[in-house]
């Protein structure tokens, strides 16, 4: 049963429409998607808009974003009864209710001084009200980003939480046989568009992570056969090694302010956690155990760090203060745990769990309680959160046969509720995904 919360708020003195009408409770899993009618935006037969199919493209991007979230369905526009410009001013709500649309998106496009002007309105067809409206102006080729921003606005208006569609994913693109795998850094929009390789494949590269505030990536490169943590500026393409360490540095992540990199340093068979300030270049050692300490992740307030250690005999998840004090194991449910990642909302830690021959992606509270396993498979690991903390992406591998064939690797997404598992399409095999914050 659909449990849509529909409030009919009396319209008395409010001119500013900021209260909830249609609303989706996204903490509930596997609910029926909310049907939306997403219309093609009107324009004055502008030849450039027609040539570049901008109306159709915008509709497709918005529909696809919202549908992939699992929370919305986009009604086939062949079912639309009203399709005229007047609907952007005042839709015939009864027509839209007839085709079961609970929300309606209308819009207008214009090109003014070589810039694309996009105006949209979101209507609640039951309350018969405009509930969101905005004008966005951008360069013409930027229609795709505008579409993601509109999808984010709709998501935010209907769920009460920030959207995550105007984001990107950096990952490792993989090609070739398993024993001679070629790996490149690649970046794409969250929906797979604008795909671009960032490295040539000459060097082995692994585990890229976005800087939460700058157009920057940190990753591991085997340049000159010296595995070290590197920084890559996405805009300039400039790469630099991070620090001057006497051994392999790996498993890098940025601090929430983007100013530090936390990583593991392996020395004489022992891996500990270190943090380096990118401005002062000062390095601080955070853990000092004879065990493997790796896969660190900061809490969003920067005050705590979760990491993976086998100091107790098996791989488990630990939490400590950001200065290395108060190290405490939190995973307790049996099995091995790895790659803890703190949720951007602060309340949960996502992880990889290995238990009885199967790999799981799950979440637990930051004290280790409330463990929930979201997905089980032969091999999968390395969750990364959407900017709003509602969705996780990770990578999954298929088993090779005895001849070594049949192996593949791909990125998947799953909702925090454990529903809506989807494969993210990439041009070649994919692993080690990292999801950006909303693009600024």
């Amino acid at each position, binding site marked *: 049963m659909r449990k849509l919360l529909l409030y009919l708020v009396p319209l008395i003195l409010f001119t500013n429409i900021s209260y909830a009408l249609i609303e989706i409770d996204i903490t509930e899993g596997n609910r029926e998607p909310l049907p939306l009618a997403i219309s093609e935006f009107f324009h004055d037969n502008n030849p450039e808009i027609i040539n570049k199919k901008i109306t159709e493209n915008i509709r497709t991007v918005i529909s696809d974003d919202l549908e992939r979230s699992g929370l919305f369905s986009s009604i086939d526009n062949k079912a639309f009864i009203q399709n005229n410009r007047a609907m952007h001013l005042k839709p015939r709500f009864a027509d839209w209710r007839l085709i079961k649309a609970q929300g309606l998106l209308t819009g207008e496009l214009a090109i003014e001084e070589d810039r694309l002007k996009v105006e949209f309105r979101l209507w609640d067809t039951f309350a018969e009200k405009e509930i969101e409206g905005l004008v966005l102006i951008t360069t013409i080729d930027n229609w795709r980003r505008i579409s993601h921003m509109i999808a984010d606005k709709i998501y935010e208006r209907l769920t009460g939480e920030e959207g995550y569609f105007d984001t990107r994913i950096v990952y490792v693109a993989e090609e070739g*046989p*398993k*024993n001679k*795998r070629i*790996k490149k850094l690649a970046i794409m929009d969250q929906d797979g568009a604008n795909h671009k390789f960032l490295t040539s494949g000459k060097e*082995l590269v*692994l*585990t890229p992570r976005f800087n939460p505030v700058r157009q920057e990536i940190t990753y*591991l490169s085997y340049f000159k*056969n010296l*595995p070290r943590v590197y920084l890559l500026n996405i805009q300039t393409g400039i790469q630099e090694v991070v620090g001057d360490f006497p*051994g*392999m540095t*790996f*498993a890098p992540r940025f601090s929430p302010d983007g100013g530090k990199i936390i990583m*593991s340093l*392996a020395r*004489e*068979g*022992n*891996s500990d956690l270190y943090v380096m300030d990118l401005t002062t270049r000062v390095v601080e050692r955070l853990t000092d155990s004879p065990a*493997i300490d*790796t*896969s660190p992740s900061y809490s969003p307030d920067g005050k705590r760090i979760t990491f*993976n250690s*086998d100091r107790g005999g098996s*791989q488990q998840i630990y939490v400590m203060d950001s200065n290395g004090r108060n190290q405490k194991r939190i995973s307790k449910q049996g099995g091995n745990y*790895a*790659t803890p990642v703190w949720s951007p909302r602060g309340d949960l830690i996502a992880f*990889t769990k*290995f238990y009885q021959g199967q790999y799981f992606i799950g979440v637990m509270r930051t004290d280790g309680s409330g463990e929930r396993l979201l997905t089980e498979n032969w*091999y999968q*690991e*390395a969750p990364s959160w959407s900017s709003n903390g509602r969705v996780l992406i990770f990578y999954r*591998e298929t*088993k*090779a*046969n*005895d*001849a*070594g*064939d049949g*192996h593949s690797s791909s990125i998947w997404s799953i909702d925090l509720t454990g529903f809506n598992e989807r494969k993210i399409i990439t041009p070649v095999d994919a*692993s*080690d995904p990292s999801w950006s914050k909303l693009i600024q």
Partner: protein
Amino acid sequence: MVSTFQNYTRYLVIVLFALFLAACETVPKDTATSTTSSSTTAVEIMDGVYVGSDTVEMLAVDVPDRIFFAYDSYTLTKAAQNTLEKQAKWLKANGSATIAIEGHADERGTREYNLALGDRRANAAKDYLMTKGISSSRVTTISFGKERPVNSGSNKKAWAQNRRSVTVRTN
């Protein structure tokens, strides 16, 4: 007909005996094909450590280039110590030779943890060579984690062959 039947029973007896020897494996569904693999497995993997020679290359005559480890372990087995002793002797006899020890893991573990595990394995081998009098200045280590399997399969034998450290001459 009779002789075929006799051959068949004799074959079956052999198969059953082989299965009995390979008691550590689960009972296979397809007797004919799994017999070979499980009996081979029983010989080639002991206590989770590969003891066969399929992937092993030679640094010199009777100096194997690699040692093998149990799952999630960097403990040197007796066989590994024997191999490293041969490597140490060879290094002493070839005083100018320098080497890199590559540490590797199988695919059943997270990427980052396996990088650390490969580093442990390479250093376990290096430490042993040092106790045999080899100067640390002649030995570098590098971990490839699970990135460079020697056997691309996803089975126990492949994983056992991939859990290794390999000594490579660098000059």
